């Protein structure tokens, strides 16, 4: 029985063990709690053993029952024994609960800590890729479910499984045939439960997918409601949403059928063991007399079957939690960026791409990219949408590592330089590098943590954001991010320019699109940018070719390949993509 159980709960058990393994902490206390809880359940059966003992002695001398006896010594022994058992049970219940709760909190605290440490090491691109909500769903809802296994279910379930096992072994000793007949339904019951598992998991996943899909749609609906109303299309979206809700209802009922149906069948089959017990008794009675030990079976039948019946409900909950664990496990299984033991602080800031290739999944995004940007020069990257401009920048910012080839900073491979030293020397003004939940002051200061407030203010003045900041209700102390003020795109970008100014790193990665959006005073902004690029190695994505006429070199990208390279006049004189782009940007005027 035990063996089969283990096989059936394989994935659940594997999940539990994986959590313990990842937590890197001793599960002793937890196991100790399980043992104590089992002893508690053992104590629970003792009154029944006593009862049976009383019964046998009572029936042996049934002929000589003295009438109207006052309670004798044996009665007080009984009272004393029962009291001792109750106190023992209470003691083990208390100890067991305490140890199992504390032990599981210890495991979970450690497990959670490992996860937040893991998140810290995820490649940035992966962090950006996770939908904001998706990752927090995993880290909040899924972990909550896992925690509930440890705190509320595991100990109950374990003790519930051990009790029948103990009773069963005892009963086997009394009468193995009757003992077996009582649990005769178990194999079939477990088989039923198990064979429905795949359907349950399958439909459960489908519901989960529909759920997160609908969640995405809801967020989209809420954020786009203004647009929808302006075009009077809110009704269409409502219809779509309502249809999803209908589908969720059908899937939910499916989940319930595949979840509860087998449990109902399991319970029915298992309880049928009682029928088999009665039938076996009947068969035996055909040829022989009844035996008093049979009474023991009737007394304990429900004690033995009860916990087994309860287990089925736990198993459904556990399976859901195991699915949650699997999602968390994905976080542990992805690859991390390799970090050197000791990073290298580069002495010069030439940037060099050597045969770099990169593809998303299997879609190539950069092919054999090779170029050098020497220190304190301005390199502009131009090309149509999807030509690989952002990928190039993301690789340089080490949001990913290239799949082949290498990127060098001051002659050292970025992987050897290490994230720490890379980010020490590189500033980014990107769309993705946004603000975090804190005050404006803190957000700019993060560029240089030790900076004085005046320095921050000066940087903000230079980046032309001082004026809008002081106009905010709490000035520099205004909270930004999700919880706080909503800043416009342009305001955010000017803040990140201020941050870069303050940080004063020798290498600057710049996305021009970001810097030109909503340029309420583009004039000032451009001056800030001009200041920012002075005496730095600048790599910049350009959308308007006119803004990079004076770049030291321009890289022209097309479909992930470097197709042209040179200065503006060089490239104009060549027949190629650059001159085409230049002409198309200019010719719009003379249509």
């Amino acid at each position, binding site marked *: 029985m035990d063996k089969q159980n283990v096989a059936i709960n394989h994935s659940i058990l594997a999940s539990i063990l994986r959590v313990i393994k990842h937590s890197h902490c001793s599960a002793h206390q937890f196991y100790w709690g399980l043992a104590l809880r089992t002893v508690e359940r053992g104590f629970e059966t003792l009154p*029944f053993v*006593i009862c049976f003992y009383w019964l046998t002695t009572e029936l042996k001398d049934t002929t000589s029952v003295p009438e109207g*006896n006052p309670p004798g010594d044996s009665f007080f022994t009984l009272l004393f024994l*029962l009291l001792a058992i109750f106190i023992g049970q209470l003691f083990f219940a208390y100890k067991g609960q305490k140890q199992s709760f504390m032990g599981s*909190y210890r495991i*979970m*605290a450690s497990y959670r800590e490992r996860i*937040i440490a893991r*998140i810290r090491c995820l490649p940035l691109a992966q*962090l950006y*890729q996770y939908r904001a909500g998706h990752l927090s769903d995993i*880290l*909040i809802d899924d972990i909550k479910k896992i925690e509930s296994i440890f705190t509320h279910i595991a100990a109950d379930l374990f003790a519930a499984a051990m009790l029948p096992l103990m009773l069963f072994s005892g009963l086997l000793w009394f009468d193995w045939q009757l003992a077996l007949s009582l649990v005769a339904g178990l194999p079939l019951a477990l088989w039923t439960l198990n064979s429905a598992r795949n359907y349950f998991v399958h439909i459960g996943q489908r519901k989960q997918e529909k759920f997160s899909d609908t969640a995405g749609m*809801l*967020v989209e*609906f*809420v954020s786009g*409601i203004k*647009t929808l*109303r302006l*075009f009077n299309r809110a009704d269409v979206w409502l219809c779509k949403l309502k249809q999803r809700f209908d589908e969720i*209802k059908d899937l*939910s009922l499916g989940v319930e059928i595949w979840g*509860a149906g087998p449990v*109902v069948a399991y319970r029915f089959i298992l309880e049928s063991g*009682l029928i088999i017990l*009665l*039938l076996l008794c009947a068969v035996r*009675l055909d040829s022989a007399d*009844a035996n*008093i030990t049979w009474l023991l079976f*009737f*007394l304990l039948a*429900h004690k033995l079957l*009860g916990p087994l019946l309860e287990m089925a409900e736990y198993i459904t909950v556990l399976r859901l939690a195991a699915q949650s664990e699997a999602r968390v496990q994905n976080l542990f299984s992805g690859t991390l960026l390799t970090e050197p033991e000791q990073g290298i602080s580069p002495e010069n800031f030439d940037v060099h791409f050597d045969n770099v290739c990169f593809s998303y999944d299997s879609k190539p995004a950069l092919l054999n990219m090779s170029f050098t940007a020497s220190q304190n020069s*301005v390199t*502009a990257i131009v090309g149509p*949408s*999807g030509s690989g401009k952002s990928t190039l920048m993301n690789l340089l*910012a080490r949001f990913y590592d290239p799949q082949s080839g290498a990127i060098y900073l001051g002659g050292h491979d970025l992987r050897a330089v290490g994230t720490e030293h890379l*980010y020490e020397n590189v500033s*980014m003004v990107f769309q993705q590098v*946004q603000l*975090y*939940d804190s005050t404006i002051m803190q957000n700019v200061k993060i560029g240089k943590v030790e900076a004085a407030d005046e320095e921050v203010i000066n940087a903000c003045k230079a980046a032309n954001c001082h004026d809008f900041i002081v*106009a905010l*209700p709490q000035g520099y102390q205004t909270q930004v991010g999700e919880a706080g003020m909503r800043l416009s795109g342009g305001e955010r970008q000017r803040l990140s320019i201020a941050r870069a100014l303050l*940080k004063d790193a020798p290498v600057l990665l710049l996305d021009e699109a970001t810097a*030109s*959006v*909503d340029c*309420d005073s583009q004039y000032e902004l451009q*001056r800030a940018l*001009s200041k920012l690029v002075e005496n730095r190695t600048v790599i910049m994505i350009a*959308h308007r070719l*006119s803004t*990079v*006429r004076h*770049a030291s070199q321009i890289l022209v990208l097309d479909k992930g390949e470097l197709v042209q390279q040179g200065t503006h006049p060089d490239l104009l004189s060549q027949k190629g993509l650059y001159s085409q782009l230049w002409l198309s940007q200019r010719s*719009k005027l003379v249509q």
Partner: protein
Amino acid sequence: MESKTNNKSWKMLWRLTSEHRFKIFIALLLTAVAAICEMIPYWVIFQAINAILQSPIDPAARFYELSIWLAIALLLKTGLYAVAYALSHKAAYSILLDTRKTLVTHLAWAPLSWLQSRHSGQLKQSVLQDVENVENVIAHHTVEVFAALFGPLVVTSYLFWIDWRLALAALITAPLAIMTSALFMRNTGQQYDQFSAASAALESAMVEYIRNMPVVKIFRQDATNFQTMRQRLEDYYGVVRELTTKTIPGWSLFSSLLAASVFFILPLGTWLHANSYVSIQQVLMVIVLGSGMLKPLLKVSRFLMEINEVMAGLRRLEPVFKIETQQKTNKLNFKNPIKMEFDNTGFSYPNQTNNGTIKNFNLILKPGSFNVLLGPSGAGKSTIAQLSGGLLEPESGTIRLNNVSLQALSQQQRSTLIAIATQEVFLFQGSIKENLRLARPDATEQEIKRAVKAAQAETLISSLSNGYDTLITEQGVNLSGGERQRIAIARALLANTPILVLDEASAALDSITQQAFYQDVKTLYPDKTILMITHRAYGIESADQIVIMDKGNTKDIGKHSELLTRNSFYKRLWQQQSECESWSIGISNLQLKELVDG
């Protein structure tokens, strides 16, 4: 006070069940019958014990008969519970469905200011998770809690039928358990609140940790961030450990007492039997039945714990239910050409500085005219756009289309008259074509092409790998701000309305593209009345009227040449603009000056 808010939530839950109460009632009825059926196996065991102890004439036949009774009872019980659960689940999921549908319908009509004060993630959580939690209450708890209360009642009556003294012994632990819970667990409500607060604090810390990770990592502050998070984790487990230590003694006593009937039944039973008041089989029966009788009550107490969370979720839904969903469906007759007129329009945002406030704003947009609204940020330009789109309603004065107030129009009709494109572009997940067709599902290929051409998005779309069918998704094409704006402008043009308001809709386009757009839109849509809200002056030389706005009011109205001579703001704008145009990365500000002057 708490009971009052809880009361409200219960009322809300009751309201939600309105259409499905009959199903739930039947489910409860079946549960009651099933609970009685659950007694039969015990009765069978009782009879079996009888048969063994009293050795009837044909014990084997008796056992065969009993096994048949048992089979019938099990089948009946299983069947009844299955139907009861099916009904309660059907009812529950129908209730969830109705609730969700109602919620999104309300959301669709939520005032924008209301929406802006809420996070879309929270609303999503409410519509999905908070509603989902209700399922457990309706589908499981109605049946289980009812069975847990009704079951012991049936058992108790049966026990009294066997012997009243033994029945009392079986019940005696109940008041003890209740006393324990009253004594040890009177603070559970408070402790639960403490736990929820700690848990909510941890959750928001986690969300913040994840969201901030990229930024703090780039600025090498992740070590500090990690330490803070670790501290919060420790705080949480500190609270949890403290609460656990407090609750475990009471809880273990409570749960032990609920299962402790046997400790009373057994001694009393032996004594009663010794004095021949009861038979052995009666004692045994009471032990079998009575020892586990009160355990279902654990379910009731678990339910009482869970219900708090469900009720909190329901409270979060309340404001959504309160949103009004009235909508006008009237249709008024309009004859082209349409003149739009702001008449002494005023509006101010609550609790805010004067930013965006407008007062006594007057402007006439002649049919087919090209109008430009210029001014510094905070002048109230975007307020004008939002008022035109009906997203805000004027506090004073009116906005009229051919002498009909805009407020008298239904959303449906307004959207056929005025289209608006704003700076913040919202594109839905789907293909580019689907996004364009949002404006008009029945637009022909030709119309789409024309709109795309005017919006200067022709080459952009043809350069994408799948052209019009390219998917705009989170993981899909990475369109720049300017590219997204061009799609949005094309969408607004496609709506085919006589009036088009562009609120900084081309702010991310470079000056050349912007100028080309102005030219093309005039050639391709000559009859359209256009209100262009902008802070830049490129390509507006040919505008029919240019309005200079500041501090919520018009400061000057005129044509390009007039304003260039008389308006200092306008003059400075042009001057700076030409410098911006000549700017390029890598040249110093000094060089730039020479370049412009020379």
